[in-house]
């Protein structure tokens, strides 16, 4: 089971996107678990859960470069969710981004 974890400022709206992505993954029988959290909890979550892919919401784009630097070193791909995909709650496109990131590696 691959863990795709989403992070934004509060994790609130992002949890709806996560459940949308989970649905798409389930529909295609993909062994992927999608969950949403708030960015301040990232380090904690990493230590406890060891996600396979980290995606940041457009609300926290300012933290992208630093997060990428930190977690790429730990071999975890980090992606940025496109603002229009986020705004249209496009679970399929965001899930594709996660899969692409995990496939291509670092």
């Amino acid at each position: 089971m691959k863990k795709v974890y989403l992070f934004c400022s509060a994790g609130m709206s992002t949890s709806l996107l996560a459940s949308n992505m989970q649905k798409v993954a389930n529909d295609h029988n993909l062994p992927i678990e999608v969950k949403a959290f708030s960015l301040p909890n990232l380090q904690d979550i990493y230590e406890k859960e060891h996600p396979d892919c980290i995606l940041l919401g457009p609300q926290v784009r300012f933290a992208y470069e630093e997060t990428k630097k930190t977690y790429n070193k730990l071999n975890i791909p980090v992606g940025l969710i496109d603002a229009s995909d986020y705004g249209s709650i496009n679970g399929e496109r965001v899930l594709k981004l996660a899969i692409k990131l995990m496939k291509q590696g670092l």
Partner: protein
Amino acid sequence: MEGLELLCFKLISAAGTARSCNIEAIQEAKKGEFEKAEQLMKEGEGLFLNAHEIHNTILAQGTNGGNTDGSILVMHAEDQLMSAEMFQIIAKEFIDTCRRMSELERKVN
């Protein structure tokens, strides 16, 4: 997902990205990259105006009574908008301060 929920998501995305632009603008200003800071502020302003348009649409539609999930999402969307507005003001002041500090540093060195 459609209707009010989708509008809320669009608002959260536009306002949230606008706020991120403002934060990135401060980060650039701290490095003395004022042109980049101004560009990011401009990008943020466009998104903020976009957010306001969506907000007006939500207000014009009125609230959908009874749907708790919906109203919590509306609250969250409104919160993002307010926070983006506040951050725009803070970022402008901060960039101005960074600019003055940078000028002072240039004079001293």
